[in-house]
């Protein structure tokens, strides 16, 4: 039964993908291309390209795409549901615990230590993505302009993204 297989396969992908984004690619590749052979390596690369240029997490994009290819709209629903379910279960439990013990002094102390670390993690993401993305004068100018606008004005980030995209269409 292909619908159940899609659910189970993408549940596996969702369950073992920590950190999201690019960390998921090897998992999806192993499950979908190597094990289930639902896609060829070339098709998988096409999906990655599409996932790159469309919004949303790569896991969702590939689940929807593969599910649709295998079993139409219902397949897309099952695969997407499969990849989201592990998050709903695990994060749901963590969220209950967080809200239950929110006022406890020991939990406050733990988060006082976690918060500075999260700030650094975000900075590291900017550095990691930046070293891959900012490689010429044009991209450096766009990045610097966007950074100044974000820090000094109350410009809407969505507007900023759309504008920089339009600049990209004009220039490339």
């Amino acid at each position, binding site marked *: 039964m292909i619908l159940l297989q899609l659910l189970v396969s993408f549940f596996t992908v969702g*369950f073992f*993908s*920590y*950190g*999201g984004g*690019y960390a998921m690619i090897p998992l999806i590749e192993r499950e979908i291309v190597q094990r289930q052979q639902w896609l060829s390596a070339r098709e998988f690369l096409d999906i990655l*390209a*599409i996932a*790159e*240029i469309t*919004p*949303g*997490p790569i*896991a*969702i*994009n590939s689940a*929807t*795409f593969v599910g649709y290819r295998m079993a139409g709209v219902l397949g*897309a629903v099952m695969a*997407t549901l499969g*990849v*989201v379910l592990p*998050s*709903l279960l*695990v*994060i*749901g439990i963590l969220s209950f615990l*967080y809200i239950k013990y929110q006022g406890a*002094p020991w939990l406050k*102390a*733990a*988060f006082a*230590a*976690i*918060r*500075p*670390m*999260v*700030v*650094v*993690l*975000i900075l*590291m*993401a*900017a550095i990691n*993505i930046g070293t891959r*993305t900012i490689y010429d004068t044009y991209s450096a100018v*766009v*990045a610097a302009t*966007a950074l100044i606008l*974000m*820090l000094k004005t109350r410009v*809407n*980030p*969505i507007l900023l*993204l759309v504008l*920089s*995209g339009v600049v*990209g269409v004009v220039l*490339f």
Partner: protein
Amino acid sequence: MDMRGSPSAASLFASFFRVGAFTFGGGVAMLPVIEREIVEHKQWLSTEEFVDVLAIAQSGPGAIAINTAILTGHKLLGLRGVAAATAGVVAPSFLIILVIAALLPQAGQSPILNGFFMGVRPAVVALIAAAAIKLGRKILVDQFSILLAGITLAISLLLNPHPAVLVPAAALIGLGRFFYLRKREQDSPS
């Protein structure tokens, strides 16, 4: 218990739909959009609560955008909030990919789309950096947090460890400090 009003399920769905529609590149790329929407604009979460949510979101499996939606929805509106926020953040990708898979087998080769995303990517980097700076201004306010941030930065640059390791490690440091300080307080007669 707090002064900020609870959102309706519909407005949660709409906010996370916007977040999902403008999450390019995955992972933390949606942070600036979500921070702007949830913390600055709607004021549903404080900066501290938002950073807590991010920490938990990176401690479990799955995409950060989805985990953030689950946590925010749960905190604001219980299970109904989870359903609304999660559906909202997933819907844009789901619908767009469905259309692409059905209509455009060659979408990856569109020069207009490629140009658009060539332009977007450097801006995404700037948005993430701006989010780190903005949050840092509010979070890194005492010696302990600055020291911890410095150590984390050094370790990250040298070893690039996984967030799933760093978050529990920081939690242990925080707990250790808490019990140490409490014990010292109890031991010293005042």
